[in-house]
């Protein structure tokens, strides 16, 4: 079998392609690096300015408004615990990284999802790319990310964006296509334009599904923080990573617990954003 067909030099191709990208788009990559770095650092500094107790109360109130009293209580107790364990600063760094990554996922992912929902061909192209993004092991694109964006928080953000974007795109497509055909027909019958149909009918009706996608993106973004720390991203992930490499089981557990607390808070808060607005059920 081997003699019938020589091995395809895919590795060589990819190497050469990455080299070419690195050289050709150096300026662009540098710009992105500087930009993202300052966004994440600015966010960390900004969040750091808020006194920890005020931050807890604000997040608690948000949880109360969007979810329930129980979640609000959990939020405050969870944050107190993180503060008590001494992970406040890393927690803010993680939050900044995840929020930046998810924000990028959403502002790139939702429009792509809308576009793919309107055109069969776009959807046909987008779907396999999403499959690659979700199944290709993160380490594989982490290495070229270092080439493009140096070591630090930026390759971490980029890797998180790549990994966390697919659910937002997929569920945006699904949400829009799930709008019943008879409702679409009715909007057509009353002479809506394409954008009126999209803005007044499809997007509002798809919103719970899109929000579920964004919620999934947040969760996936959080699951990337340890991997991101391997390329130098600071935060709770770095603490876990350090503990693992130094076999400090207890420390690793503490930092891991802090990640879990943040994950639950973000999940419960974002879970209800889309659903709350569907009044009168």
């Amino acid at each position, binding site marked *: 079998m081997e003699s019938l067909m020589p091995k395809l030099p895919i590795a060589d191709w990819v190497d050469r392609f990455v080299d070419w990208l690195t050289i050709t788009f150096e300026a662009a990559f540098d710009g992105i690096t500087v930009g993202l770095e300052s966004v994440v650092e600015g966010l960390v500094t900004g969040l750091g300015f808020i006194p920890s107790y005020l931050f807890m109360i604000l997040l608690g109130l948000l949880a109360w408004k969007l979810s329930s009293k129980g979640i609000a209580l959990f939020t405050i107790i969870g944050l107190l615990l993180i503060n008590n364990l001494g992970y406040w600063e890393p927690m803010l760094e993680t939050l900044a990284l995840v929020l930046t990554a998810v924000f990028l996922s959403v502002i790139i992912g939702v429009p792509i999802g809308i576009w793919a929902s309107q055109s069969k061909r776009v959807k046909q192209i987008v779907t396999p790319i999403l499959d690659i993004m979700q199944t290709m092991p993160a380490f594989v694109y982490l290495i070229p990310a270092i080439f493009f964006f140096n070591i630090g928080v930026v390759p971490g953000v980029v890797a998180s964006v790549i990994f966390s974007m697919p659910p937002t795109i997929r569920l945006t497509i699904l949400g829009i296509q799930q709008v*019943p055909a*008879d*409702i679409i*027909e*009715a*909007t*057509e*019958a*009353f*002479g*809506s*334009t394409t954008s*009126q149909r999209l803005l*007044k*009918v499809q997007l*509002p*009706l798809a919103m719970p599904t899109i929000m579920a996608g964004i919620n999934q993106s947040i969760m996936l973004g959080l699951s990337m923080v340890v991997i991101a720390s391997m390329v130098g991203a600071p935060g709770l992930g770095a603490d876990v990573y350090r503990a693992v490499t130094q076999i400090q089981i207890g420390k690793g557990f503490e930092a891991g617990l802090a990640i879990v607390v943040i994950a639950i808070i973000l999940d419960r808060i974002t879970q209800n954003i889309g659903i709350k*607005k*569907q*009044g*009168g*059920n």
Partner: protein
Amino acid sequence: MNDKHVKLSVKSVTKIFGKQPKKALQLLKEGSPKGEILKKTGSTVGVNQASFDVYAGEIFVIMGLSGSGKSTLVRTLNRLIDPTVGEVWIDGKEITKMKKDELKNVRRKNISMVFQKFALLPHRTVLENTEYGLEVQGIGKEERKLKAMKALKLVGLEGYENQFPKQLSGGMQQRVGLARALANDTDILLMDEAFSALDPLIRKDMQDELLELQSSMEKTIIFITHDLDEALRIGDRIALMKDGEIVQIGSPEEILMNPSNQYVERFVEDVDLSKVLTAGHVMKRAETVQIDKGPRVALQMMKDLGISSIYAVDKKKTLIGTIHAADAKTAVEKGQSLHEIVDRDVKKVASGTLLTNLFDKVSTATIPVAVVDNNRLQGILVKGAVIGALAGNNEVINDLERVNNQVPISQSDKGGV
């Protein structure tokens, strides 16, 4: 219906679903049946060369079983489905040739639609749903609220404007659908199985309300249904569809009494005629005597006709009462006038009364029941004719329009009695 102004005209509209519409069209022209075309081309014939005119102000019902192409046909009228070939004209403008923008305007200003499954926007309140058609036209908030509230009032949904569709029953949801269509104030209303998803009792209520609304609005309504009773109840004219073809177009009476082929005949054979035919359909010519004549004249007439009583009318054919032979005889002896002996206690029905609602009166009457319009005598109901009509006997059914235009025969026509 008086001035038969054609509002909407459909000219041999054909819709073929599938990949080889041209080949299928060719086969269709050669007269191949639907099944064969499907086998040869993989295409389905949805609508097969449908042609009809709809007059301004009428309710035109398109009726057929599921799969007969009626829903496809109605969607070609506002081009929710583009016909493969054929023309649709509205107010002398060809819809089928219009560009996207023109079509959008027609949908906004000329045609609105009510859907079988309501198709309301679940994230909007009743008021916001009703406003939708106005909103996409860019009409200001105040004005569209005013118009939407007016439409909601028409369908009896005042006070529900801030509810969400899910909080309403099916019947009320469809009222919202109707209000949404009415708010646009279009001349043409397409109703696609609008009441089919409702309970039978609610459906009947909605039919009645639609008829009541229609009597004041005079819209041109194209109503799709699979329910013959519904078609007969609300349709001014009915088009019957089968396998994508229109097999017969006519008034409810024409469809019932003169089915154009076996299919229509089978369709209508189970219809309860008593709920379709009216007193006007089965009444016989009334023999009358003018109230100012003498009792001798009345007596002579009854003798000639071999009857024991006769209806008395004035010069304007207004029904006064009954003259009985015995009374007339006494009057002749005593020298009384007909005015003095007329029996004013008359059993009468309006000519539009359905047979089902007059059985009681007819069966208990000792003399034929009088049929009146605005108290003017139109004819009489003879038991035999009523029963004959129920049995589907064409000979006893009047052509209603001719009857209405004809002056009832009075005694002066009888040639100097």
